[in-house]
């Protein structure tokens, strides 16, 4: 498959999964309304603002918290390795047609990099000292191309909103669960005449509310993986050299992480999840399996 085909496929997948996520959110809100005996308008009027407020708040605090959590510092042009990193970020931003992001460095022996920022004009790319020392120019370029693609595709926005929706669903489900626990169940409105059928729907609604946070987390992880594939493909398009990133990923595979720093929420912004190595290749991981990523890159 050509790079362009990979890009199109991943974008389509993202849209489908996001629609699913939104449907999930609305279903949770309606299910709650049903269980509490409130009309859908009412539950939407309450649930939606909560969800939106949650998302906006997490989004505004995204950048600074990421940088401090990672313990990152601005790159030093006097240091040759860091100078090369700065060069690579400049080159990739020209290829992408974006303003050059600020360049930061995280002191760590692991090979990793991440991107963050509220909008492309105001972004940061950070790489570990392990990355700039162990990767050669081509491989580093591949990694930076991947990170630049995250910025270009506004993945920080996409993932923060998705996390927000997941959080909102979990929050709403939590609140409702407590209300049910303490307040008893009031049932689905005026249809007490229909007896048995009503109870089944009620139970289904409750089970749905309990499972919704799990579904939404799985959906969030699926979105995260698709965006990673997309960033791989877009990054390869920028460098016109998929092999560079493929080799870098191979080096990451060999590398055993020994000091993951920073908050877990930013794990999806890294090129490889620095925290959950054990869960690396399951539906519970934020990143697709390294072997599969390498395979796709080499097929471009």
């Amino acid at each position, binding site marked *: 498959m050509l790079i362009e085909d990979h890009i199109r496929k991943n974008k389509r997948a993202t849209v489908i999964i996001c629609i699913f996520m939104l449907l999930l959110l609305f279903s949770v809100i309606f299910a709650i309304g049903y269980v509490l005996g409130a009309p859908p308008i009412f539950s939407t009027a309450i649930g939606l603002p909560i969800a939106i407020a949650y998302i906006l708040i997490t989004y505004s605090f995204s950048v600074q918290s990421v940088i401090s959590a990672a313990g990152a510092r601005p790159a030093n042009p006097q240091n*040759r390795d860091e*100078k*090369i990193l700065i*060069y690579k970020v*400049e*080159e*990739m931003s*020209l*290829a*992408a*047609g974006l303003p050059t992001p600020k360049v930061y460095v995280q002191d760590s022996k692991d090979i990793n990099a991440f991107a963050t920022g509220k909008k492309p004009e105001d972004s940061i790319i950070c790489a570990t000292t392990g990355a700039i020392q162990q990767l*050669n*120019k081509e491989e580093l370029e591949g990694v930076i191309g991947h990170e630049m693609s995250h910025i270009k595709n506004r993945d920080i926005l996409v993932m923060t909103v998705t996390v927000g929706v997941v959080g909102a669903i979990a929050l709403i489900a939590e609140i409702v669960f407590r209300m049910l626990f303490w307040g008893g169940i009031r049932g689905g409105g005026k249809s007490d005449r229909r007896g048995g059928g009503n109870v089944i729907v009620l139970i289904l609604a409750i089970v749905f509310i309990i499972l919704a946070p799990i579904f939404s987390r799985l959906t969030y992880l699926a979105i995260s993986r698709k965006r990673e594939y997309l960033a791989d493909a877009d990054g390869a398009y920028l460098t*016109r050299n998929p092999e560079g990133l493929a080799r870098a990923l191979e080096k990451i595979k060999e590398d055993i992480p020994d000091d993951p720093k920073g908050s877990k929420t930013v794990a999806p912004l890294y090129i490889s999840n620095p925290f959950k190595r054990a869960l690396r290749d399951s539906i519970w991981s934020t990143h697709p399996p390294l072997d599969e990523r390498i395979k796709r890159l080499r097929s471009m």
Partner: protein
Amino acid sequence: MDLLTIGIILLIILIIVILLLVFWGIYNKIIRHENRIDNAWAQIDVQLKRRADLIPNLMETVKGYMTHERQTLESVTNARAAIMSAKTPQEANNANNMLTGALKTLFAVAESYPDLKASQNFLSLQDELTHTEEKIAYSRQHFNDSVLTYNNAIETFPGNFFARWMGRKTREMLQIPEASREVPKVSF
């Protein structure tokens, strides 16, 4: 008026509004893509100028070491002079290609001057020039990518109708001449 008539009128209004929004979107998209091309073109010039600006410093650094390489050094300075005095884009383009070739030779020759290669000044200039060559290459790549996006927008449906109405034609991509196809490669 009965309900049916009102319903139909509202539906027609809705369709018109949606169509207007779509047209608005397509029109703006074409303009944005076109502006991107102009911006990308200007960016190439910025990088080419940056490269030309580095030459005097480079000459100062190497001339003490490469005293017997008059021809090599002269081709670089001549190329730069040609860039500075170029009057048409074609002249500038030719001069820039000349410079690429001349620099390639200079760095190849510099390999046999260990004293020069040990000089911190030279090394950092070499880094800077390699970096600038990469930037030129990526700026050109971005220009071609922008042209592709624009051409796609005005050749596919429904953009093609707008393009005709707006008087927009497809743009040409940059063809890289053979001489500058090989960027001066320096081993690290």
